[in-house]
């Protein structure tokens, strides 16, 4: 029977016609490979199709043509790929019939086709092709300049604080309204009091035909009861003062409310980003530099916090103020308002032009900054290597280069920036001059009073000050947008090891592992190729093979740090992809080559997988791991602080702590990844005892460089370039005289030869330490 397979639907539109024309009646498609390269390795569409009768090839370049080979003439079809380039070859008994090239994106299809051919040959229907193609969801990131729209996405984090936000906006409106009062008061102050008074004084002074004494008397009279009594002045002044005080109080409240809000929003942002980071697979972390991630979570969120608390608040205030002032201006004299605000579009245009260029600059700046922190994150943990090889100078140089890059990028931005801002100031000054000129003319023309002009100028000064501060904000706004984009780059990443939609609770597993047809591709390299293996509960499997044979990847697949590109892994008969990740991994204990201890006490480190463990349990685990006695020798016993910045433990001691850590969670499945590789033979013996306790009764998959470590293994699996090459017990494999026997003998010779070398390595170690 034919397996459900959607080969026809995969055929590209442009080739569907010719293909259908080429098919004979009753001929069915079994597999299709969409070619994306021609024979000369130029990009071009093409198609290789397998039917139950023929192998067909359709090409568009160099000229459209159709080739076909009856299946009887084809002896074998093979698909291989290397470094991104694949080739599918068809052979007859006597030679090569055809060779098709494709990029690695099509490797799955090619393989399916080759398998379908083999299946047809084997007399059964094609079972290939229906395998789901693995697509890396952790896709490449966009390189476009940060758009301000990114900042709107921050609203999602403001949603829980909507009430506070509303309060903040209300306070902003209040502050702005209070700020509009003082200039308004200057209008009646000038028109009703100061100007009439000055007129009357003028008249009194210039009155002709009166004596000096009389003139003096008149002046006195004007002062006492002129057009408008002087007594109203304090009222106006207190209105100004009151408005100023109100603006101050409201501004203070607004600042406090919004600063609190922004602090919480950015803390949420940090938490969300960090929590999301933990959901991402190892694949993501191996592709990202630590320093870059650290700077995203620390300095980028800080920049956003600054933006929210400072810039955004100012921005909103300015916006409201500008709108308010503009409304006042139009209310007082629409004509004058229209003329004086003519510089506004010019400023808006300037800002818009500069913004795009600034945004690109800031994104580059952020990246340069991340580069610098990467140097730090790289060299500080590796300081021993730096010192041992006396490369301090080079590292300083590297840092200096990264720093120089920051300076260079920022210089470019600053050049643009420093030109832009005085430019805006100049345009605004022009606007002010126009206001004066036009205003004076309007006063002469008796369209407006001096009071209106005074108030008008007070407003327009404010208007331009706000406009200037707003344009200045473009700086930090763009910076924040760039930062927000870098954070959302992390948040938008879909975990490539997704949680199942309908999870099956694993509970406590028995520990039967079954790999069927598991392949894994790392980038364009096929690391694990069609591995099928069944491990019974309690069995110990030793993985053997040269470096890069895919041993560690296989372990990572079992732990579900990655998902296989093809095939599936079942534990106790269930695909591990249907277990919730956490619940599944609780069944797995791991001991790695470089045991990592966190900063904290020994007992905290042992209880890492089970923080609720009692002291008795911790001690029992440490005893079983042969760690108890050396822990007692430490100055503070189990309360000794270890890890980075803590007490230094030897490699063997650290390893035994990590074994105790694995023992404490009492896992069903145990993963040992070169657990004894980094220690000397004596220490290995001690660790081995601890490991024996750990392995007992658990399904164990172990990798060991030293083959003697695997002496307890029930079965040894020899991997060669991602495939299982040999399998069996030590005895069987030695008798088979294959890869394993070769490896074993080579190692035996090496160990014998090692004796002479030892003193030299010891001296070297001492110098490094």
């Amino acid at each position: 029977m034919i397996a459900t397979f959607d080969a026809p639907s995969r055929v590209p539109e442009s080739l569907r016609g010719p293909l259908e024309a080429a098919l004979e009646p009753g001929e069915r498609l079994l597999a299709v490979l969409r070619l994306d390269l021609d024979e000369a390795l130029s990009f071009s569409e093409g198609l290789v199709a397998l039917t139950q009768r023929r192998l067909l090839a359709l090409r568009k370049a160099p000229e459209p043509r159709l080739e076909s080979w009856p299946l009887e003439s084809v002896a074998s079809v093979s698909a291989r790929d290397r470094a991104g380039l694949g080739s599918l070859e068809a052979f007859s008994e006597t030679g090569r019939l055809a060779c098709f090239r494709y990029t690695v994106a099509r490797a799955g299809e090619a393989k399916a086709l080759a398998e379908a051919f083999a299946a047809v040959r084997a007399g059964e229907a094609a079972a290939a092709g229906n395998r789901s193609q693995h697509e890396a969801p952790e896709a490449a990131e966009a390189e476009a300049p940060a758009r301000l729209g990114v900042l709107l996405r921050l609203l999602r984090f403001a949603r829980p604080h909507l009430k506070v936000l509303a309060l903040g906006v209300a306070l902003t409106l209040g502050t702005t309204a209070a700020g509009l009062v003082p200039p308004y008061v200057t209008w009646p102050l000038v028109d009703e009091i100061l100007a009439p008074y000055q007129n009357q004084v003028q008249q009194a002074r210039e009155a002709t035909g009166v004596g000096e004494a009389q003139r003096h008397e008149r002046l006195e009279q004007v002062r006492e009861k002129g057009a408008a009594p002087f007594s109203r002045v304090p009222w106006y002044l207190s209105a100004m003062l009151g408005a100023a005080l109100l603006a101050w109080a409201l501004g203070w409240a607004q600042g406090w409310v919004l600063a609190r809000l922004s602090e919480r929003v950015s803390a949420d942002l940090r938490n969300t980003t960090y929590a999301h980071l933990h959901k991402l697979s190892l694949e993501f972390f191996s592709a990202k530099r630590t320093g870059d991630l650290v700077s995203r979570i620390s300095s980028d969120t800080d920049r956003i916090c600054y933006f929210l608390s400072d810039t955004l608040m100012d921005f909103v205030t300015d916006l409201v103020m500008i709108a308010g002032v503009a409304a006042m201006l139009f209310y007082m004299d629409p004509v004058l308002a229209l003329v004086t605000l003519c510089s506004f579009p010019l400023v808006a245009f300037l800002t818009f032009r500069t913004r795009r260029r600034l945004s690109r600059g800031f994104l580059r700046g952020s990246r340069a900054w991340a580069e610098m922190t990467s140097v730090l994150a790289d060299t500080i943990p590796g300081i021993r290597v730096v010192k041992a090889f006396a490369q301090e100078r080079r590292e300083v140089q590297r840092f200096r280069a990264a720093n120089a890059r920051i300076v260079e990028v920022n210089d470019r931005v600053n050049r643009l920036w420093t030109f832009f801002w005085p430019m805006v100031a100049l345009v605004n000054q022009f606007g002010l001059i126009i206001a004066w000129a036009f205003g004076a003319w309007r006063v002469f023309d008796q369209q407006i009073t001096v009071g209106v002009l005074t108030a008008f100028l007070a407003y327009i000064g404010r208007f331009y000050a706000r406009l200037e501060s707003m344009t200045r904000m473009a700086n930090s706004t763009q910076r924040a947008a760039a930062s927000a984009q870098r954070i959302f780059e992390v948040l938008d990443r879909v975990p490539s090891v997704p949680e199942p939609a309908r999870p099956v609770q694993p509970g406590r597993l028995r520990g039967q592992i079954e790999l069927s047809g598991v392949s894994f591709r790392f980038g364009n390299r096929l690391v694990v190729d069609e591995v099928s293996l069944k491990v019974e509960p309690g069995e110990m499997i030793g993985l053997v093979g040269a470096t890069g044979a895919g041993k560690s990847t296989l372990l990572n697949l079992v732990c579900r740090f990655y998902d296989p590109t093809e095939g599936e892994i079942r534990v106790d008969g269930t695909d591990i992809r249907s277990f919730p990740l956490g619940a599944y991994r609780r069944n797995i204990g791991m001991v790695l080559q470089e045991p990592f201890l966190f900063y904290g006490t020994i007992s905290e480190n042992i209880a890492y997988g089970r923080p609720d463990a009692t002291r008795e349990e911790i001690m029992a685990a440490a005893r079983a791991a042969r760690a108890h006695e050396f822990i007692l020798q430490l100055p503070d016993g189990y309360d000794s602080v270890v890890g980075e910045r803590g007490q230094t433990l030897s490699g063997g001691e650290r390893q035994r702590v990590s074994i105790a850590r694995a023992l404490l969670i009492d896992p069903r499945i145990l993963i040992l990844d070169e657990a004894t590789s980094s220690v000397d033979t004596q220490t290995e013996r001690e660790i081995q005892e601890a490991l024996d306790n750990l392995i007992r009764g658990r399904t164990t998959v172990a990798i060991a460089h030293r083959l003697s470590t695997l002496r307890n293994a029930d079965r040894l699996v020899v991997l060669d370039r991602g495939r299982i090459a040999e399998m069996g017990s030590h005895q069987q494999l030695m008798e088979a005289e294959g890869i394993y026997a070769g490896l074993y003998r080579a190692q035996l010779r090496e160990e014998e030869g090692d004796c002479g070398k030892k003193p030299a390595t010891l001296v070297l170690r001492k110098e490094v330490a």
Partner: protein
Amino acid sequence: MSPPSRPVASAIALRHDAFGRLVLTTAEGLEHVGVVPVRCFPFSDPSGAISFCDEAGHEVCSLGSLDSLAAGTRAFLEADLARRELVPVIRRITRVSSGPEPTLWQVETDRGETSFQLPNEDHVRRLGADGALITDSHGLHFRIPHVRALDARSRKFLERYL
């Protein structure tokens, strides 16, 4: 899990021999001369597990808790432990030198006035809810059971480290 545990004995007897060495007699009557009692969790659970190690550092016997001992034996053991441990309790911090690390601390402890060098801020750590443990440049511990119980001046010195 089947850890191979050492004999756990509450019916032990302790004495000092003529050389001042601690002699432990297990419930089975086995005698170990020159054993060293070690608190397994000296800070988080000082009266909890005690382990007796021989001179080579191998554990010969362990004790789940001090409480499991007879009153007399317990008092003897506590007195012995007290002679082996020096963890002064800081009552007051008189002065902390300003300037770069290491800093010089002058303190009043339950064992009199003293001064010590603190290499860096990592050598001050929290202990429980309100306690602090300071380790000087030689590895000597100073304990502060309740930071809040210190006077204001001392607390001010500690503030930048906690």
